[in-house]
């Protein structure tokens, strides 16, 4: 008799927890009434497309290697690129204008909810590998203009593979909890104590440019550690680091505003060393912006509080220095050192 009671209480509790989970993880969306009427400006949409560097992830890789850093054609957004992260492999979706495989069949509202709330047209959560935590800062006008521009790009009918994520990251619903922590639904609001130039830079950096997605380190849950904003991070896609871009001596402290703007324009740093890695595509897109906007980005970065590097070389595991290096002893050269674990 007693056992039965306990069992019932257990069942009731489990149902209550499940209901509560279901309730708090429900996708939140922007309503049709909240979306302002807007006559789209396709030219501005193209500009936002370069600010955001959409093609860097969404254009098909140049070769049959899904992690080829090169893209085939910047305007063909067929997806298919893989992002190998500590949470598993993400495959970037097709956002071409194709009505079935791409986003050509979406409404403006569906597009805005995808961009700014991370919710798909069928009401599922997107993974934050799609940087909607940054895009939520955008203006509706920029988002809708971007939508109008994307509609002018070619349709591609190929579908990208599904993400390959181990348990529990495969459960999309769980992202509702993550969003409670890291998606605040605030659009960008200018800081009245700062110049118009700095505020313009802040908007591009925090919103469409989504710079913090790589340049800010993350905690174990994959949320950005705002106390270390822009202080650099492990490379989410593997080896190496994403540099500190705060004005610290190990970051951009010695760079002038002009140096930063020149780097974004040409890819040359003050020592005339060239940009590399994933930043190449970012830089090449930012080179297409107006000089004033590159200056604004630079002004904003110079206005950030200087922070020490968030990742330190000391934390990266060194290979065994005394390990024998004879060819015969290591059939798999990859096996001799452990991949340094990114902390997220």
């Amino acid at each position, binding site marked *: 008799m007693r056992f039965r009671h306990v069992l019932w209480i257990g069942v009731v509790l489990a149902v209550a927890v499940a209901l509560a989970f279901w309730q708090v993880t429900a996708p939140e969306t922007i309503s049709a009434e909240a979306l302002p009427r807007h006559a789209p400006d396709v030219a501005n949409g193209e500009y936002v497309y370069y600010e955001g560097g959409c093609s860097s992830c969404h254009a098909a890789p140049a070769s049959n290697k899904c992690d080829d850093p090169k893209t085939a054609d910047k305007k063909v957004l067929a997806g298919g690129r893989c992002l190998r992260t500590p949470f598993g492999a993400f495959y970037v979706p097709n956002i071409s204008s194709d009505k079935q495989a791409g986003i050509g069949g979406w409404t403006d509202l569906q597009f805005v909810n995808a961009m700014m709330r991370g919710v798909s047209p069928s009401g599922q959560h997107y993974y934050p590998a799609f940087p909607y935590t940054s895009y939520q800062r955008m203006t509706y006008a920029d988002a809708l203009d971007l939508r109008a521009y994307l509609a002018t790009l070619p349709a591609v009918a190929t579908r990208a593979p599904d993400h390959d994520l181990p348990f529990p990251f495969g459960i999309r619903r769980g992202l509702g909890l993550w969003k409670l922590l890291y998606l605040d639904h605030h659009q960008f609001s200018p800081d009245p104590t700062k110049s118009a130039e700095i505020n313009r830079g802040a908007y591009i950096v925090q919103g469409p440019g989504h710079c913090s997605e790589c340049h800010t380190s993350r905690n174990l849950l994959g949320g950005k550690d705002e106390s270390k904003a822009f202080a650099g991070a492990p490379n989410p896609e593997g080896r190496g680091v994403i540099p500190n871009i705060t004005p610290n001596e190990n970051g951009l402290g010695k760079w002038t505003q002009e140096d930063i703007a020149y780097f974004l324009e040409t890819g040359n740093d003050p020592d005339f060393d060239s940009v*590399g890695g994933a930043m*190449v595509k970012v830089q090449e897109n930012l080179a297409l912006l107006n000089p004033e906007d590159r200056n604004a980005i630079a002004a904003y970065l110079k206005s950030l509080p200087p922070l020490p590097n968030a990742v330190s070389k000391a934390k990266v595991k060194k290979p065994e220095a005394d390990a024998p290096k004879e060819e015969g002893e290591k059939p798999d050269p990859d096996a001799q050192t452990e991949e340094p674990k990114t902390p997220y």
Partner: protein
Amino acid sequence: MNRSLAVAVAVSALLAGSLGAFGEDSVIKQRQKLMKGVGDANKTVGKMVKGTDPYDGDVAAAAMKKISNVPDQYVKLFPKGTSNKDDPETEASPKIWEDMKSFTEKAGKLKAASAKAADAAAQGEDAFKPAFANLTKVCKDCHESFRIEKEKKKE
């Protein structure tokens, strides 16, 4: 007195000997030195192109020639087991060894682009600027695929 002098001589001779044996640069150090040379040459002309320094065709041509001499030596310095996976001091991505053919081709492009820029340098600043822009493109193209960013830290 004489004795200690003799000991000092002997010790320094020993030290010199061991330095000869162990003081040679590793391939990683050699690569880094070569690339540092490329960077310095690039900076010399970069400052001219940017307008920080006045344009000097002879200096620019010499700098570009210096760069064009590097790739042939450089590509020979990539034995197996010298990637960033083996030693975090190097920025050489393991992807180099996955696609050595493409890496070598890109090195060839550096040689060609810098040699071309050296020729253009003699024809004046207007001819040189696009040649230099093309060289930057070659640098970026290789660094995009094959360089891993290390932490930059003042020691």
